[in-house]
């Protein structure tokens, strides 16, 4: 199960597991983002390369207009995936405290 939606603070709340079967749902939401936004991963347990692809595609599109995705509350397992992929150099990422 993967859920995505706006929180009361305007951040985008992601929860569950972002695997290849959930990418259509994630991309459908991401395609509507047109300005700098923060993704809150406090409820996200898992991400695979398919989910990374959605994040990268959105980041590249937003960069064309000077906007960007930021990611916060990343668990240590997902942070490792970002680090292995080099995504920590192309996203502003904050680990979960």
């Amino acid at each position: 199960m993967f859920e995505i939606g706006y929180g009361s603070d305007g951040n985008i709340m992601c929860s569950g597991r972002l695997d290849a079967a959930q990418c259509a749902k994630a991309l459908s939401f991401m395609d509507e983002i047109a300005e700098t936004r923060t993704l809150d991963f406090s409820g996200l347990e898992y991400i695979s390369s398919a989910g990374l692809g959605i994040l990268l595609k959105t980041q590249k599109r937003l960069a064309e207009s000077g906007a960007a995705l930021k990611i916060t509350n990343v668990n240590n397992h997902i942070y490792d995936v970002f680090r292995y992929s080099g995504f920590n150099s192309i996203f502003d990422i904050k680990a979960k405290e």
Partner: protein
Amino acid sequence: MHREFARDFKSLTAIYEFAESILAANDIGKAVRFPVHLAMEELFTNMVKYNPDAEGEIGVDVVVDGGAVTVTLTEVDVDEFDVTQPRDVDTSASLAERTPGGLGLFLLQNIVDKLEYDYHDRRSRVIFTKGSG
């Protein structure tokens, strides 16, 4: 434990639940469970994407020995695709230089402790191990 799964991304939830039940029953910690699930997904989706004409299901075996988890994915009547071959990914590339895709097997090779590939008689078998026994 062995199960067969339909060649469809929709099988991913069932694969996760199958493996998770075994890992939890054997008290495997998250530091091993997360990469095991990730490696299983990357291999399964790779098999689905690159052998679209194959008709058989994909077999998944999960074995726990001490703290080590060994997973085998098997498919039949498919072309050879050696997932152990090094993947050329520039993880220092800038955002402009990057294109989506191509990270799956690279991640796989970085997160498992042992990765083997066996192919004969059009049967493809990938075996990976994570954790120490």
